[in-house]
């Protein structure tokens, strides 16, 4: 098996951000995504037709 892309490179600009800038940007980006949260992840996983190695 080969691994999927799990190498994370943090941009230098992020490392140079102040704590306030970092928190502010995290909050801003969170606001752009939170509306997508339908709270249905369990429903998605439980749709699998069979218990797969008891992983669900």
């Amino acid at each position: 098996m080969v691994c999927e892309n799990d190498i994370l490179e943090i941009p230098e600009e992020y490392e140079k951000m102040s704590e306030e800038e970092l928190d502010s940007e995290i909050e801003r980006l969170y606001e752009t995504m939170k509306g997508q949260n339908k709270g249905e992840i369990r429903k998605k996983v439980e749709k699998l037709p069979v218990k797969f190695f008891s992983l669900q």
Partner: protein
Amino acid sequence: MYWIDAAHQVVVAEETESCSEAQITYSDSIYSKIQKYDNLVTLHSHPNSYPPSVNDLNSNFFNHYGLGIVVCHDGKIFKYASNQEIRIDYYKLVVEKHLRKGYNEYEAQIVTPQELVTKFDVMVEEVKADGV
């Protein structure tokens, strides 16, 4: 990486000869095989033993996979699934936040998914010995 039809417990496609050490390449052949299925289970390894990445989560979401499994070389197994896109820049900023708290890179990548599951429609869990 393996794509598994959970209903029939059959491997429908596999890619074990990626040209990139760290990235799966979706060939036309792979796409033609997997697009017929819904709710596939994907299985791949993480040699550096990191938990599922933001790219793993987004791949699960965009490709409508049912469940993802990551097998780490340190013996850990993670299951994951996503019902929304997670912005990669957001993920990296959160990792940076944890690095500044004093976590090392591995610890930051363990803690970040744990935080994501509290805020977004995603699941990342380690599979314990009893399968729970």
